[in-house]
């Protein structure tokens, strides 16, 4: 009963200050929204990987695969079956279509174990006959079916909502035909129940090895880093949002200090008062959490298509572009809102619990930071920075990388108020004019109240500088790399071997060089990869971007006994030029060099094209790069189309392919950029919250100065200047932090996450823009409190002198 009375007295505060309540709820909802939006995306993606892994029961079924990573001969499958092995063949491959890739899964429906039947083919109107006999059927997700509808040469399509986008399920015979891999099987699913008296594997197929079921599969391993990345951003945004909550709760508690004291004096116990406040906070947290989760759904849904494109572009992982509501996700969103609120309110609650009954109330008490607190904060900040540097130098792994990042950011944030205080004190010693002196002294006094918002701003600005520098560095490097890598002026793909034959004959003498681009897919160092063949041609010697190489590296490749490998493979398997590598099928080669290969998640090796054909006689020989004078490209394309009837889709010129690659690249960082902007927005809101909070306490500090002869307009200008100065100083502090962040991202996180390292480039023009943006944010955030100040009647200022305090 007392609690109800107390609660109604406490809640009346919010009725009188709806804007403050709105700010509290907004801050908490935004923090929850960014966090849970990111979580929703992650959950959706993880569910997709699980579905991909469960699609053919890899997560539950053992498998047989060749020890050397090569393809299994179909005759081995028949031999195993006839020796009593109950296995089901699967052929997996990528079908390169105009502008996209299709992951093709060839299955054998009759032997497919029940555990692998994630699809009910029958429900799609399916029948065995059209499925297994030419032209066959392709089952794919409805959106994929839509996307493929116009692609010529594909079997009839059937929609199945159970399939992931970008994946098509078909009969193994159809898959062998479409992929041009007759008689080949990627792996054999082993049925859980095997008959009595089954022959030993070594006696039937000694090249095969049994692999235990694996959960999650390659995709979750590959994409872990990406999701950790998103999570880190979501957390950063949440932390920035909590600054708002912290200051809003702090303000509300301070303003109700008199009420608290009165309630205590009237006999409410500290326990009951704290309980009432806790109850109030929980209600707010849940309300804001609900709004936040709803907003988070919108954020997630808005960002998901970009994330899907990124995952597709970077990892070939298929994630649907639409978000589904998962209970565990929104419950965790509510929980994080609650935990965040309580964390932000902890200090205030503690103070209420220990509120002295008779001490004089001073509303400025909380804003006065003691020297001790600042020293403690400086020590913690320095400690975090040292931890960050130490881990950066000696740590390894993605988790260590993100710890470096986190320690760097939060160490810097903790040091910021200390740094600003020192700068202001230094400036104060330099100025001679009384108003300037007062201005600086007063700014310093404001610091504790503003420092949380400034820390939030620092985090957001550093993240912006860091990520911006990384993305721009990446873009610069990537563009330069594309120029080198895409040396051929025209790329053509024949539709069948006979056409390839005609094409090469036709092109003889018409172009400077015909460079075959043939490859096989297989396992490299235990992970999926590809082996490409390259002709011994000056194009490669002159253009191919090598990071490290043996002398005469291309001569070594030309002998057929050496290979170039990409950076990802080299880093993952710790390979160096001069070392050796086993290619699918047990082909042993020397590593002649390492090249950069951005945007490709898989390992890759380049061997001489003649040697490729010799070792893999079934390799598809359809694709070629053509060297010729760039001006002759349109004419040649027209001529090929005219004389050989090659469809336009099968010819891509250099400019088009570059544009497409850059498109994929741009998509890759859309999400990061969006989160960046959102984080900056939340930081801006934190500024608004803090400045509003402070402005309510500013009058007693401004009134005497006004009384001593400063006009209100001048005071407003000074207040504005103060906000801008603090924002500018924070921006200056954010520069080195952002650059350090970029370094960590480029040299540590990217290497761990993607397998490549990029040189860092600096873009001062971007900083200028961001600096102006920060000032603009500060200006906007100061606008409301300052407007109020400017419109203040003298009577309001006079109250300061008259009020009992």
């Amino acid at each position, binding site marked *: 009963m007392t609690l109800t009375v107390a609660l109604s007295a406490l809640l009346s505060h919010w009725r009188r200050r709806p804007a403050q309540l709105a700010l509290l709820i907004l801050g908490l909802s935004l923090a929850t929204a960014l966090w849970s939006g990111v979580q929703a995306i992650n959950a959706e993606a993880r569910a997709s990987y699980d579905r991909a892994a469960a699609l053919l029961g890899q997560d539950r079924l053992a498998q047989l695969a060749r020890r050397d990573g090569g393809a299994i001969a179909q005759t081995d499958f028949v031999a195993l079956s006839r020796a009593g092995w109950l296995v089901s063949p699967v052929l997996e491959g990528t079908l390169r279509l105009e502008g996209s890739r299709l992951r093709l899964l060839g299955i054998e429906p009759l032997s497919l174990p029940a555990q692998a039947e994630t699809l009910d083919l029958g429900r799609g109107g399916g029948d065995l006959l059209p499925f297994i006999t030419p032209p066959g059927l392709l089952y794919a997700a409805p959106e994929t079916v839509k996307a493929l509808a116009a692609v010529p040469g594909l079997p009839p399509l059937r929609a199945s909502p159970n399939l992931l986008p970008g994946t098509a399920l078909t009969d193994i015979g159809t898959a062998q035909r479409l992929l041009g891999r007759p008689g080949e099987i990627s792996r054999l699913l082993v049925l859980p129940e095997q008959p009595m008296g089954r022959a030993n594997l070594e006696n039937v197929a000694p090249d095969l090895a049994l692999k235990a079921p694996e959960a999650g599969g390659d995709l979750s391993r590959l994409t872990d880093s990406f999701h950790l990345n998103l999570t880190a951003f979501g957390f950063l945004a949440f932390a920035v949002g909590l600054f708002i909550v912290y200051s809003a709760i702090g303000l509300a508690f301070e303003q109700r200090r008199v009420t608290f004291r009165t309630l205590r004096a009237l006999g409410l116990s500290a326990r009951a008062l704290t309980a009432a406040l806790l109850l109030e906070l929980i209600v707010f947290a849940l309300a804001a959490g609900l709004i936040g989760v709803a907003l988070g759904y919108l954020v997630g849904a808005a960002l998901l298509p970009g994330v899907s494109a990124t995952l597709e572009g970077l990892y070939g992982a298929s994630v649907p572009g639409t978000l589904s509501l998962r209970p565990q996700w929104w419950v965790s969103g509510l929980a994080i809102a609650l935990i965040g609120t309580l964390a932000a309110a902890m200090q205030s609650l503690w103070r209420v619990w220990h509120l002295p009954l008779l001490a004089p109330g001073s509303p400025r008490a909380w804003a006065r930071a003691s020297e001790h607190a600042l020293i403690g904060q400086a020590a913690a900040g320095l400690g975090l920075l040292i931890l960050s540097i130490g881990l950066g130098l000696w740590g390894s792994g993605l988790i260590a990388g993100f710890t470096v990042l986190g320690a760097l950011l939060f160490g810097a944030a903790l040091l910021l108020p200390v740094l600003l205080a020192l700068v202001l004190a230094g400036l104060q010693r330099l100025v001679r004019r009384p108003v300037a002196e007062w201005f600086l002294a*007063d700014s310093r006094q404001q610091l504790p109240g503003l420092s949380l918002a400034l820390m939030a701003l620092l985090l957001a600005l550093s993240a912006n500088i860091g990520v911006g520098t990384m993305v721009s560095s990446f873009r610069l490097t990537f563009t330069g790399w594309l120029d080198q890598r895409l040396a051929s002026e025209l790329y053509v793909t024949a539709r069948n071997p006979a056409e390839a034959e005609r094409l090469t004959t036709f092109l003889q003498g018409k172009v400077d060089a015909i460079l075959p681009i043939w490859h096989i897919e297989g396992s490299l160092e235990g992970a999926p990869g590809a082996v490409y063949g390259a002709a011994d041609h000056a194009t490669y010697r002159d253009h191919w971007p090598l990071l490290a190489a043996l002398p005469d590296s291309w001569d070594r490749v030309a002998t057929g006994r050496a290979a170039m490998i990409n950076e990802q493979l080299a880093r993952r398997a710790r390979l160096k030029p001069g070392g050796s590598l086993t290619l699918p099928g047990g082909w042993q080669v020397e590593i002649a060099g390492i090249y950069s290969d951005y945007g490709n998640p898989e390992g890759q090796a380049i061997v001489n094209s003649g040697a490729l054909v010799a070792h893999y006689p079934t390799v598809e020989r359809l694709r070629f790069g053509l060297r010729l004078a760039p001006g002759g490209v349109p004419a040649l394309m027209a001529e090929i189309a005219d004389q050989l009837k090659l469809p336009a889709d099968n010819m891509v010129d250099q400019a088009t392919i570059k544009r497409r690659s850059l498109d994929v690249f741009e998509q890759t960082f859309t999400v990061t950029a969006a989160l960046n902007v959102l984080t900056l927005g939340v930081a801006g809101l934190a500024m608004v919250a803090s400045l509003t909070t402070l402005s309510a306490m500013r009058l007693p*500090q401004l009134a005497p100065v006004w009384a001593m002869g400063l006009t209100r307009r001048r005071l407003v200008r000074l207040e504005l200047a103060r906000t801008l100065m603090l924002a500018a100083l924070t921006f200056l502090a954010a520069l080195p932090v952002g650059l350090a962040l970029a370094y960590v991202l480029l040299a540590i996180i990217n290497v761990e996450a993607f397998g490549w390292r990029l040189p860092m480039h600096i873009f001062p023009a971007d900083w200028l823009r961001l600096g102006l943006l920060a000032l603009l944010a500060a200006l906007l955030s100061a606008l409301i409190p300052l407007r109020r100040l400017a419109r203040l009647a003298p*009577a309001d200022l006079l109250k300061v*002198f*008259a009020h009992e305090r």
Partner: protein
Amino acid sequence: MLLTFTDVFKRYQTAEGPLTVLDGLSLSLDGGETLALTGESGSGKSTLLHLAAGLDQADAGAVRIDGVEIGALKDTGRAAMRREVVGLIFQQFNLIPSLTVGANLAFHARLAGRHDAAWQADLAARLGLENLLNRYPEQLSGGQQQRVAIGRTLGARPKLVLADEPTGNLDEATGDGVIALMLNLVRETGAALLMVTHSQRLAERLDRRIHLTGGRIL
């Protein structure tokens, strides 16, 4: 005349309707003269003081300082008047919390462009503040704070000192000491003083006394 009020009216809007605080009030104060203003709560004492300081404006009538009508000045003009001619001492002391005692003492004088280091040091010594110059206001007692406020005002050598219940927050003994100091210094600098007080005992120590009732001089 240093300060004249001529038929000054001032109304405030309150929850119960318009409230007339000053009702055709007229008074004048010579340079160097000290005047005590007494009256009940709500009799218009503080309003009169605020009008005299140019902190607020009259609805009708004229307030002149040094022959300049304050109502005719713009905001900047009134601010200049406050800076250069007037000095204010409040019941709440209203020191600048971010500045040290020394900086507070010098502040108004520097704003007025009349900073005199020797006078400043002398003032600090006379006010017993010479050992507290590097402290911050919050570290001082009420009497000490009010001495800083007096020092701040007189440091700028204003022609007119306006004091609003300067001892209202102090106990009697401390208050008497502070008032004695203030009166000595005011007389020494030749400034005029208009002091609002509810204490008849304090009012007796000034040259002249006026009692306000319902916005009029009795």
